[in-house]
């Protein structure tokens, strides 16, 4: 069975229907591989083996009864550990929630369960999704399966590593400023960040509520579309979720005649030589498929990075105020007053990066600073949105690197915490504009490290991302 673990979701679905193997056999094979490989890779914080086996058995019974069923029936998946899972520990990779057991499922989890998908476990991440390498996790280290001396990216590094290491067929992550796309790029996978409001955020532990999105990491484009079809759609429990109900069928057509592609000049020039080369190659492939490719400018992209860190930190400072040691989570032992209880619990429970961002966010919203920082950042968001709208008047889809470099080494010393923020330059503009974007593994550098190419589409145009993605990336044809 182990040799089958690298197959796509679609391939597994066909084999399960043909009874070549059962969901129970497949699930047990993944669990065995996790047991063998994950001590090294570190993708998972919690593995729920018993539940996975029980759910796999149920999937097999449903399949045996016959009748229509979802392509996701019996398919093993992983979920980032900021997605609440009922009765399964959910930590956000923080000491603050190290032993927290949610009493409810996130909507995306319950929707996957209703499709019969099998949860293998909860994956490692940067603490409270704040980071770009998964190194700020308080609980364990995740290595890149492509090169274990390097990071898997972040903050959904565990989710990406799990799929890349054949420890799950697909995984869910969350993307606030690039946290699904960048780890997908670093690990050689397809990563989708949907339009803001496309997928319910109910049960996603909030980082920045106007930016957070649940994203999907898969081996190919077709798998990604299947999962989005299962988890997207309006949710009464999320007031920001959109009413639209779209389907994401991929027709397998690779004719892109008439498609107008724009390469974002500023993001291309931010990348290193090997990444730039891959973008240029991708542009040539698009032309060969019939598309026209031009260059567009997004001059506000540098400001977008600043605005992102101000707004996300400001919203995080509000969202993380609930972690006070009172109702759940870590409570400090040594305290003489309620104020000390709260301050000490938070100071002991949160790691350095989380504390830095809470402090920045608190400053950005405080008297004397709110005009200069938060309100100015809001104005930058509108400028960036206008920039994208202008580009979409002359282009149908935009092309850029997903990240300026390939995966960087694990454990790099950084005296300046903002150095790593610069690696978000390519993903943050579409994040603050609320647009959908996908990362495709279209190249490698001279050392075999994966390079991700990003496509950005107008809002709610995930189907266009999938159409172009499938045409560009051969893996999408499976």
């Amino acid at each position, binding site marked *: 069975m182990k040799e089958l673990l690298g197959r796509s979701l679609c391939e597994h679905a066909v084999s399960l229907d043909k009874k070549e193997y059962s969901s129970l056999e497949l699930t047990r094979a993944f669990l065995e591989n996790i047991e063998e490989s994950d001590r090294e890779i570190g993708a998972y914080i919690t593995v729920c083996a018993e539940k996975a086996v029980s759910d796999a058995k149920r999937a097999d019974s449903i399949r045996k009864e016959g009748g229509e069923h979802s392509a996701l029936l019996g398919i093993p998946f992983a979920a980032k550990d900021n997605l609440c899972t009922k009765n399964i520990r959910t930590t956000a990779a923080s000491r603050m929630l190290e032993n*927290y*057991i949610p*009493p*409810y499922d996130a909507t995306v989890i319950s929707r996957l369960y209703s499709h019969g998908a099998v949860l293998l476990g909860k994956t490692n991440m940067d603490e409270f999704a704040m980071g770009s390498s998964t190194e700020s996790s308080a609980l364990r280290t995740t290595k890149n399966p492509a090169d274990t001396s390097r990071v898997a990216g972040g903050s959904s590094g565990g989710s990406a590593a799990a799929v890349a290491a054949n420890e799950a067929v697909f995984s869910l992550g969350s993307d606030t400023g690039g946290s699904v796309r960048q780890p997908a790029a670093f690990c050689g996978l397809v990563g989708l960040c949907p339009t*803001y*409001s496309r997928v319910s955020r109910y049960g996603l532990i909030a980082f920045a509520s*106007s930016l957070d999105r649940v994203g999907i990491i898969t081996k190919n484009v077709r798998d990604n579309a299947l999962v989005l079809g299962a988890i997207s759609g309006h949710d*009464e429990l999320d007031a*920001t979720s*959109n009413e639209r109900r779209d389907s994401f069928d991929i027709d397998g057509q690779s004719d892109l005649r008439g498609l107008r592609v724009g390469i974002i000049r500023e993001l291309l020039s931010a990348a290193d030589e090997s990444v730039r080369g891959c973008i240029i190659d991708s542009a040539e492939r698009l032309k060969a498929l019939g598309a026209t490719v031009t260059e567009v400018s997004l001059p506000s992209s540098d*400001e977008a*990075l*600043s*605005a992102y*860190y*101000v*707004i996300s*930190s400001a919203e995080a400072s509000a969202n993380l*105020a609930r972690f*006070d*040691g*009172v*109702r*759940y*989570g*870590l*409570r400090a032992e040594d305290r*003489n*007053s*309620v104020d*000390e*209880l709260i*301050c*000490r619990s*938070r*100071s002991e429970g949160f790691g350095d990066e989380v*504390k*830095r961002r*809470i*402090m*920045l966010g*608190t*400053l*950005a919203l*405080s008297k004397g600073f709110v*005009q*200069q*920082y938060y309100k*100015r*950042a*809001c*104005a*930058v*968001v509108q*400028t960036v949105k206008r920039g994208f709208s202008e580009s979409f008047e002359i282009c149908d889809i935009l092309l850029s690197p997903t990240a300026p470099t390939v995966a960087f080494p694990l454990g790099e010393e950084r005296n300046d*915490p*903002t150095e790593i*923020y610069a690696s978000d330059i390519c993903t943050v503009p579409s994040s603050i504009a*609320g647009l959908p974007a996908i990362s495709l593994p279209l190249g490698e550098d001279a050392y075999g490290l994966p390079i991700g190419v990003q496509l950005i589409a107008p*809002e709610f145009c995930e189907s266009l991302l999938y159409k172009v993605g499938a045409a560009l990336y051969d893996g999408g044809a499976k």
Partner: protein
Amino acid sequence: MKEFDIDGIASLAHLEIQPDERERLVRDMERMIALADRMKSERREQKHEITHVSADLREDDILPPIDRDILLSQAPESENGYISVTRVLKEEIERKEIGETV
């Protein structure tokens, strides 16, 4: 760069700064603020709108709550169906007992 009161911000954020982390935290904050300062100054104020959000209210249907025991099982300390915390009014009660005006 405008001066900021690190202790004031920490107080608002309900965080404690240890003496051995103060210098590093101030330096880190300065670098983060320098990143934020890269936003151009000649910007007109505009609203930050999240699109596609309706303000429809739901009906006042009474739905079953999550079981209290389940919620209390997550509380660090609990007693007789209540979450226990450090005494809030301790100082007030002590002052009243020795006859001070509250």
